[in-house]
């Protein structure tokens, strides 16, 4: 038994080391992606949507490092411009649910009673819908495009934050110093903001990292179904969809956008894992 415990300590040490490594590697990966996305017009002189019908589907050359697609557009350029779209919408789509879900979870967990019951029933209803079924219907209501994606993800996504924060509030409100703050007569809004929120928001922030991955996956999947960002805008999902037809000759056209999503997800997960270990110590 003793030796096992000793082993346990060793693991903790190693994890702490890897917590920082994970966090920093994640930040470097996402940072690089962001730089490429922002600097896309400087890094490539090709137009991401300009067609060049004399140079369609050419294999990688010195001028086109990843070749061109069926309309003669430079694949690498579209990949970089796609990063702009997917990263921006991915982050924007998480912002709103984060705010709404955290607020509702905070109030719901703190007040309990009828408000809590109502919010929880709405939560139960929302999680009964498979996300893609809901998203597909919503995209038709709002009309395909970035706005529809953000609305669709927001309408479904707040639930996760609400549940996470509510559960954390239920624990936090029984803590001694929260009781003390209550007894000393501080206004509720101040207790919530200064004493409860800082304690419960950590888990929501950690979840938001994997949530960005999920929303990018949603953008890509909707893009594939033709319900996402309308063509010809360069977007990873529609690149996968358009490339599927040429997969035998140019396997990299649908493959590399997917690899980009995996890399993005990997970076964000590393940040999330690093944060978990840092913040939970």
């Amino acid at each position, binding site marked *: 038994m003793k030796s096992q415990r000793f082993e346990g300590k060793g693991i903790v040490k190693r994890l702490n080391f890897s917590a920082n490594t994970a966090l920093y590697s994640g930040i470097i990966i996402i940072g690089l992606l962001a730089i490429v996305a922002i600097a896309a017009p400087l890094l490539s002189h090709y137009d991401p949507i300009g067609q060049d019908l004399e140079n369609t589907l050419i294999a990688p050359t010195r001028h086109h490092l990843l070749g061109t697609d069926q309309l003669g557009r430079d694949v690498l350029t579209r990949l970089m411009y796609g990063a702009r779209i997917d990263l921006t919408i991915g982050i924007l789509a998480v912002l709103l649910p984060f705010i709404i879900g955290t607020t509702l979870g905070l109030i719901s967990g703190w007040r309990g009673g009828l408000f809590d019951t109502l919010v929880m029933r*709405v939560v139960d209803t929302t999680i*009964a*819908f*498979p996300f893609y079924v809901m998203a597909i*219907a919503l995209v038709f209501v709002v009309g395909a495009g970035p706005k529809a994606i953000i609305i669709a993800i927001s309408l479904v996504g707040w639930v996760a934050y609400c549940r996470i924060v509510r559960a954390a509030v239920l624990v936090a409100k029984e803590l001694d110093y929260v009781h003390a703050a209550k007894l000393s007569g501080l206004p509720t809004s101040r207790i919530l903001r200064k004493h409860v929120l800082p304690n419960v928001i950590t888990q929501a922030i950690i979840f938001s990292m994997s949530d960005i991955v999920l929303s990018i996956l949603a953008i890509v999947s909707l893009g*594939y*179904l033709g319900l996402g960002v309308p063509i010809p805008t360069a977007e990873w999902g529609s690149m996968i969809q358009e490339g599927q037809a040429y997969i035998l000759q140019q396997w990299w056209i649908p493959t590399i956008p997917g690899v980009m999503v995996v890399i993005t997800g990997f970076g964000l997960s590393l940040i999330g894992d690093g944060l978990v270990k840092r913040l939970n110590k």
Partner: protein
Amino acid sequence: MNFLFYAGKRFLQVLPALFGISLVVFFLVHAIPGDPADVILGQRATDERVKAIHHLLGIDRPLVVQYFSFLSHLFQGSLGTSFYNNTSVSSLIAGRLSATLFLMFGGIMLALLISLPLAILAASKEGGARDQVVRVLPIIGLGMPQVWIGIELILLFGLKVHLFPVSGFGDTLAQHLRSTFLPSLSIAIGLSPILIRSLRAAMLEILEADFVLTARAKGISRSRVMLSHVVRNSIIASVTVLGVNIAYLVGSTVIVERVFAIPATGGLLIDAISQRDYPIVQGVTIFFALVVVTVNLLADLIHAALDPRVAL
């Protein structure tokens, strides 16, 4: 007695959700812009004809009336009739249900086949090299779009090596199994990251339990304890994890069936939306939500039956 009480309580909790679902679906569907009459009539649309069609379909009545008529049909077990070909929505769903079920069960089976061994491998020596490797896998897997997994599988096992068909559903059972293998695998690869994580965590927790210590103290070997005590208990955990993720699983089938051109229930939904065929959209969405609610309920009840502490 306790179990019955718990089952009753869980069932009552489901009712408001069901009501909410019907409400959301109905109003969502009617918020989809576009007029079914325009789609039916096309070029031949005149004001009178449009009015006649509206009356025929019953969509000239106030929304509230339409909602209650929809609800009362629902209680009678009817999901309505398609606007276009006079077929009942339930029969349309039934016609495509088998493909969806093949995908769902195939996905679950393959996901367990992938996740269980990996979780055992990781949990058998926490923090060891194998554990570190297995913990990286979900991080990579979680970022893979399922459409992309599907396309890569088509490329590798359908086009490069002609092992599996790349589209369609086939006619015989053997063909069904063969043609749903790659799509199920795509679903499984998408589901595995979540499963591996939860199963590993569950196994580590069980390894700490007193009965495992007792078994070890009695001199039963580590690997036997792992297989007979820990794995069996973590199966219970995977029932819950699968229950919680059923919505995700159902959503995956909608996406993946599109990649492999399989005529399953999701395609019905997408086609119906573009045709403004309200009853089908309503019916399919409600059907999916019902599947999710039922499976969640079943998973909780199975969990409570297997582990009586839950019902306390």
